């Protein structure tokens, strides 16, 4: 069982609020990822990191930002949430090979 954690699991907030979604892994993986997914739909890569102080934007444009100050921690921040940000956010990690990704349980975000 992969040890990757996401908090909160569910979040309902009002428009304009700043939020941070937490993601931590205990496997010592170098690579970490954030995906956005509407329920049962395809996964869209929005951010990735190959190591500490390394962050890149993914294929899907996102207004969120990420940071990677510690290997095990990869938080995602939305400075001003909008209803269009309502979605499920999945965090994943992989070792340096990158072929097998382990996913967290996700955060279901609802912006009113």
């Amino acid at each position, binding site marked *: 069982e992969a040890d990757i954690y996401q908090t909160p699991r569910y979040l309902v907030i009002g428009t304009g609020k700043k939020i941070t979604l937490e993601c931590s892994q205990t496997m010592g993986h170098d690579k970490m990822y954030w995906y956005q997914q509407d329920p049962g739909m395809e996964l869209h890569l929005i951010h990735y990191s190959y190591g500490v102080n390394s962050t890149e934007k993914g294929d899907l444009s996102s207004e969120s930002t990420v940071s990677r100050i510690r290997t095990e921690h990869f938080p995602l921040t939305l400075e001003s949430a909008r209803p269009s940000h309502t979605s499920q956010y999945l965090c994943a990690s992989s070792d340096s*090979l990158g072929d097998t990704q382990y996913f967290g349980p*996700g955060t279901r975000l609802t912006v009113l």
Partner: protein
Amino acid sequence: QQQVKQSPQSLIVQKGGISIINCAYENTAFDYFPWYQQFPGKGPALLIAIRPDVSEKKEGRFTISFNKSAKQFSLHIMDSQPGDSATYFCAAYNQAGTALIFGKGTTLSVSS
């Protein structure tokens, strides 16, 4: 540009039947092809994976068939059970890439 095309989008199978999900890829540099299984409210989890040096890999009731010349691979679920009802994603990867490239997913319902 969809680099991994997955079909069908949804599938209904009787209990005990065979479920077949197909994927096709374009980039011949891909060298790792995993399948992920996702239950509602959970993150995707690795189910089975194959590398292009073999044409088939079987793990229990799950089999991947791989056709390198056709650039296609498929997941077969034998003796499908209601507990197999989930969304299945195929993916492809090469080490020069950013991350796994996912198909759009197939929602499988196994009726009892």
